């Protein structure tokens, strides 16, 4: 097993004819992901990388039974694209697009809840269950099938951490996204990893800003019985500056790395200060 995506995932790519959409469709197919359809309004009837393109998500779902979608459309249209997927009955929507207006994300997430749809992102690298399916933009070479579940707010840092799980590999790696408002939280993933028999240990990769990590720590303390490791980026970040991610702002003394590390420690989470230390720590606990 794994979480969110696997061999049963029938993927639809929204924005498939764009530069990034087309490139990653090829990469995901090469990885073995079952990409069944693409959507770009006005380009229906074409084929990209052997994948049929449709004008609407509704048409694509009708023709191909797609059950998950990945979104590459530009920021101004991403909110609409998520809603289109939700209303067409898609139950997992991964939004890679960066720079989506916060209120668009808020609205889409509110609608997703009423339709029982899970949104991952926006502004995220996606989800990979190594050896099964890759629904995202991550480089395949950093991932190996195995038993460590990784959940992260970052992109490249996620690859760095995953690459350091050594011989243990990963069950699923979820990049939840760096924006202040995201569809899937650390807690959502922790719950799924705890319930997934294949996952033997969990790594949380957090960063400054907000208090998602603190809430994740509380959850770990109450519900998670598997070993949990934590990494926090941004210990040297100056306050009140947006460090690339919209969510990564420390303001008014909350959201600091120090507070997050303290919360992790008090929940019994094993803190990793250098990504390369992870392999050793996993060996010690597994």
């Amino acid at each position: 097993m794994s979480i969110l995506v696997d061999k049963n995932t029938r993927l639809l790519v929204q924005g498939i004819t764009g530069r990034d959409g087309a490139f990653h469709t090829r990469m995901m197919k090469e990885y073995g992901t079952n990409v069944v359809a693409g959507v770009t309004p006005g380009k229906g009837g074409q084929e990209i990388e052997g994948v049929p393109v449709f004008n609407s998500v509704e048409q694509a779902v009708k023709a191909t039974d797609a059950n998950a979608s990945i979104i590459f459309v530009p920021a101004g249209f991403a909110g609409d694209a998520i809603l289109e997927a939700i209303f067409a009955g898609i139950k997992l929507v991964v939004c890679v697009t960066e720079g989506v207006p916060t209120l668009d994300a808020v609205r889409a997430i509110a609608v997703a809840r009423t339709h029982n749809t899970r949104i991952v992102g926006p502004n995220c690298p996606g989800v990979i269950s190594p050896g099964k399916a890759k629904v995202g933009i991550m480089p395949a070479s950093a991932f190996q099938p195995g038993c460590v579940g990784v959940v992260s707010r970052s992109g490249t840092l996620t690859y760095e951490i995953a690459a350091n799980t050594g011989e243990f590999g990963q069950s699923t790696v979820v990049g939840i996204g760096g924006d202040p408002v995201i569809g899937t939280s650390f807690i959502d993933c922790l719950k799924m990893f705890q319930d997934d028999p294949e996952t033997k240990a969990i790594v949380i990769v957090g960063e400054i800003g907000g208090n998602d990590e603190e809430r994740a720590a509380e959850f770990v303390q109450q519900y998670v019985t598997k070993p949990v490791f934590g990494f926090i980026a941004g210990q040297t970040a100056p306050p009140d500056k947006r460090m690339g991610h919209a969510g990564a702002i420390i303001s008014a003394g909350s959201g600091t790395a120090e507070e997050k590390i303290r919360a992790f420690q008090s929940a019994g989470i094993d803190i990793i200060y250098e990504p390369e230390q992870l392999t050793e720590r996993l060996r010690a606990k597994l």
Partner: protein
Amino acid sequence: MKIHEYQAKAIFSDTGIPVPREKLATAPPEAKKAAEEIGLPVVLKAQVLVGGRGKAGGVKKAEKLEDVESIAGQILGMNIKGLEVTKLLVSECVAIKAEFYLGITIDRARRKPVLIASAAGGVDIEEVAKKTPEKIIKIEINPLLGLLPFQARNVGMALLSEAKLATEFTSLALKLYRLFIQRDCSLVEINPLVLTGGGTLLALDAKINFDDNALFRHPENESLRDLSSEEPKEIEAKNAGLSYIKLSGNVGCIVNGAGLAMATMDLIKRFGGEPANFLDVGGSSSPEKMVTAMRIILSDPSVRVILVNIFGGITRCDDIAQGLIQAKNEADIKVPIVARLVGTNADRACALLADSPVLSATKMSEAVKLAVARAKEAE
């Protein structure tokens, strides 16, 4: 994006939220003229994009006309938390019966807007929330329905005993929510919202932050941007699609991805060095972007070494290597460069850099240690 109080008040005024009579001034004689028009006494308020200006002496009352010029002279040119005061707001002095707090922002955890109100206004609301949380009213707003009249009314009745005033509050709160949504704000705040001696509600202060991600659909906000409060190099970086923040150390960093960039800075510090900057080259990177990144970093005279840490996904390592070579050809770079390039097309990048003086490493820790050592040698 933050805007000044006077700009936020102009927006309030357009929205129908009452504000005091006031005028902007950039020189003491102008302030005096404004005070004459408004009528004494007046309050002079420094316009800077940081909090805590009151404590820093940036807000003062002037009773007499001859005091206005001298106080304006003290405030203008003042330095508040690194920002020079170039504008001040001359505001009518209002008799205050009660002070409230009213704000709307996004609750990240609940993923929806929240209205926050308190009868303890005029002070630091985060302090109130920490010390006396029972004094804070928090209303969750369903983003699909918006702030509902009954919600606003219930808050109004909790804060104000008089029915007429509660109705006035309801109308004001609904206007504030409409503004929050229409202009894609991340925060709108009135602190304090006052009940005047005359028995009406008035926004004595105003704060509006816009969602940076939504600026593309609000061209009207561009003219409100105060570039003087932004680091010129950070603006140059932003225009080139890079995210740069200057810090005080000597190890220049070029990294792809914000999380990895922060982790790299942390590791530099952990191994005894000091990062000179945060720089995220972003996703799909062209060699040209690298050249710009190098130029921005090298314009900081304290940089002793450049550390390039790339985990290629969308970013291709050969683009990064190409950019490094191009930058070296275009300018005589004296500081050593340490590069750690892994992921997409790393092998091609290695081949490209084989004959260059760039120091390479395969592990992140190795690269950081090497860079820190070089920076120390050069000091």
